[in-house]
């Protein structure tokens, strides 16, 4: 039996923003549909309407020509619309089976039988009796999917499902999704990753500013055409710069970096050695969870490891804390911009004061020099085109892209000799990504160096002069980036070896 889902003239207005503006879309089972758009384009609102979390101000949803009243998530479940959110709704301390049995209507015995059938059918290997906290993100997502499958859904909506997955897990997910599709489940795949749209989906609807701007067959699209539709303007394509750093001095050198942790959630680092030349970008690739967190914290001075030697501009800095390292003109942009690089409850100028380098005079003789901090903050806001000029604004009201610009601005205004950044464009929209990439290239053009720790291979290939891969806490050989192909990188990131 085919499923036919029709969204008709849906509008949703929030105070100060039109989230969905007269959206009409049609989906038929047997195909995988992509819903593509930047952050804030209105995809999430639409999905929330479909899953009953939000009700629209206007418009209707039809499933097989039946008008659906979706006023709560329960209604969506009743109508066989399943939904896997980006953030998992699982009880970490309960076992997989307990999580699945919470909202089940049958007895445990038959439930277990049905779960096992699903596991077998789709080749999932999950131990039902381990606590969820011991599962990888990919497995947690599978548990969420099983939860949907138990209700034999007609429609399965996946919201940015690959943001937490490794490449391999992503591949597995795609295989499963194609299987579900063949079995007649209608799949709506929400993403802002263009490549995934092209490799997985049959049809793509692009949303921008609350409106559907295009619906097309993916076979007729390319990355560039989709990107242009999504952003609404022709993107200036960033050129990969020429490798100019062959005979430059090494300004940053790490020797014998070892890190052992008792915490099972941390990765041990084993004898890392590398160096960065002046004006160079060293890319550190890897699937997340292979030691990047620990490496970043050691490079920034948040963790001090004994016996490590870190030479920066001919000085030994391994024992210095982040503030002291900043005085030597290093700068850091951590992955977690929301709760580490900035404090959401603090005002913009207070967040700027976190980078309290000596010549800033933010705190003279231990006293706050508010005027100075605010002047400085204003300069950052305008120099780095942050979308506000109000330094009193709490940073929680900045969008991801603007927050990242603020953080980079704060770190770069000291004209550091070395910037270490970790997933600087994670979760940002194309416009912001472009801006940040341009900024990072500009740094290298000014003969300053960068270390780019990233899980995004495209970004690494675009920006790095040399690339090294981290896998299970060990580094691969360092390679000039013109010798590196995405395939090669993929093999190394998955733990394989080349040549």
């Amino acid at each position: 039996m085919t499923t036919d889902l029709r969204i008709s003239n849906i509008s949703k207005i929030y105070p100060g923003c039109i989230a969905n503006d007269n959206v009409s879309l049609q989906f038929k089972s047997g195909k995988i549909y992509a819903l593509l758009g930047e952050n804030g384009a209105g995809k999430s609102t639409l999905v929330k309407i479909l899953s009953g979390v939000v009700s629209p101000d206007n418009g209707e949803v039809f499933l097989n020509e039946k008008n659906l009243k979706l006023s709560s998530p329960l209604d969506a479940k009743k109508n066989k619309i399943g939904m896997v959110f980006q953030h998992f709704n699982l009880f970490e301390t309960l076992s997989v089976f307990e999580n699945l049995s919470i909202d089940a209507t049958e007895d445990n015995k038959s439930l277990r039988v049905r779960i096992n059938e699903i596991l077998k059918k789709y080749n999932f290997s999950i131990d039902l009796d381990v606590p969820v906290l011991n599962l990888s993100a990919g497995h947690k997502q599978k548990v969420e999917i099983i939860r949907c499958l138990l209700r034999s859904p007609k429609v399965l909506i996946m919201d940015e499902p690959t943001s937490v997955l490794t490449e391999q897990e992503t591949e597995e997910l795609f295989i499963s999704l194609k299987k579900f599709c063949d079995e007649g489940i209608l799949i709506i795949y929400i993403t802002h990753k263009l490549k995934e749209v092209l490799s997985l989906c049959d049809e793509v609807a692009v949303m921008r500013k609350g409106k559907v701007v295009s619906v097309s067959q993916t076979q007729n699209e390319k990355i560039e055409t989709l990107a242009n539709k999504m952003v609404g303007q022709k993107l200036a394509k960033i050129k990969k710069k020429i490798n100019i750093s062959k005979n430059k001095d090494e300004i940053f050198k790490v020797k014998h970096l070892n890190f052992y942790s008792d915490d099972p959630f941390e990765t041990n680092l084993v004898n890392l050695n590398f160096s960065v030349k002046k004006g160079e970008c060293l890319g550190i690739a890897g699937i997340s969870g292979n030691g990047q967190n620990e490496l970043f914290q050691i490079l920034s001075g948040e963790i001090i490891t004994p016996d490590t030697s870190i030479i920066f501009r001919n000085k030994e800095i391994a024992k210095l804390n982040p503030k002291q390292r900043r005085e030597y003109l290093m700068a850091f942009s951590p992955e977690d911009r929301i709760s580490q690089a900035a404090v959401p409850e603090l005002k913009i100028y207070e967040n700027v004061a976190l980078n309290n380098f000596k010549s800033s005079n933010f705190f003279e003789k231990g006293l706050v020099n508010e005027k100075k901090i605010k002047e400085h903050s204003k300069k950052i806001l305008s120099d780095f085109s942050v979308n506000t000029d109000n330094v009193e604004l709490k940073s929680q009201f900045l969008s991801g892209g603007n927050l990242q610009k603020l953080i980079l601005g704060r770190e770069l205004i000291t004209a550091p000799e070395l910037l270490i950044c970790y997933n600087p464009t994670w979760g940002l929209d194309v416009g912001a990504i472009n801006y940040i990439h341009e900024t990072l290239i500009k740094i290298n053009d000014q003969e300053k160096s960068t270390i780019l720790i990233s899980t995004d291979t495209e970004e690494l290939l675009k920006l790095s002069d040399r690339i090294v891969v981290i896998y299970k806490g060990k580094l691969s050989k360092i390679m000039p980036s013109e010798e590196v192909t995405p395939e090669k990188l993929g093999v190394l990131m998955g733990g394989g070896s080349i040549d």
Partner: protein
Amino acid sequence: MIKIEKRNDVPMVLYFFTPFIAIILTILGGGIIFYILGFNPIEALKFYFITPISNLYGFSELLLKATPLCLIAIGLSFCFKSNNWNIGAEGQLTFGAIVGGGVALLFYNQEGFYILPLVILAGAIGGMIFALIPAVLKTYFNTNEILVSLMLVYVSKLLLDYLVVGPWSNPEGFNFPETRQFNDSSRMPLLFEGLRIHAGIFLALAAVMLSWFILYKTYLGFQIKVSGLSLKTAKYAGFKGKTMILVVFMISGACAGLAGVGEITGPIGQLHRMISPDYGFTAIIVAFLGRLNPFGIIFASLVVALTYLGAETAQIFLQIPKYIGQVFQGMILFFLLASDYLLFFKVKILSLKKNELRH
């Protein structure tokens, strides 16, 4: 089904307004309790909240009780703002009183203008040292400061017990568990003839001003604020986390020590077993009722001091045990936490209302 959601933006006006709601609810709750106990609630509440401060003497008593509460709460606000949970201010108060009292006893037969400052200083240092114990254990051995500081309360109280019964007991005191009376040179000067309010209140006011300055105008205050909001960020910014823990505990201990020394050199005039009606614990309520804000704490310490006084009048006029005061203090804390909860989260009943759940 009930659903609880975090509110995205809490207006600051409401944030400072909820303590007043908590106080009003406490008064209503108190009225209900009096009614159940068989009293006319209006009359009883009048005895509790109005009678104690209806004359000058009562007002002076209010300030007298508010002084140590304010001092301790000011100190605690440094700890609480930076995510350090010092629960043992009562112990730091006691130890400060022991050290300060010890110095006062040393000078029991001497006179001089320098004696009182010495005694006060000794009290502050005593509190500071005692607060350093949980701080050092926390920074260097990862112990939990809540447990350590709380358990140390009993250590200091037993030490005081031992001293007043044993080595420091008054040789002319017929074996009563108390020390000699302090010399006038180590007593806080009284502000008015016939009233017990003493110069210690200026210490509290100075602490308010100084703490406001430190918290809002200095680098230390900025570090305290950031660490309280996000330890991850504090680490990333390169703040010296260990030093800061030690500093906030020292400030907090010194304030509690001052409160203790203010009590023994003020209204009490000697050391004995009962130098504090749990001011150190009640000050925790004061700190939160005052929103950890120096000026808020002044206001909160007056309100909570009134619950002490009211309990005494209730005991006299209504023959209710004065422990009713603790009931009122408990209610203040309960209603404050409850209204905070409703301030930061919204509760939705899903099945009854068909309203949408906005993100």
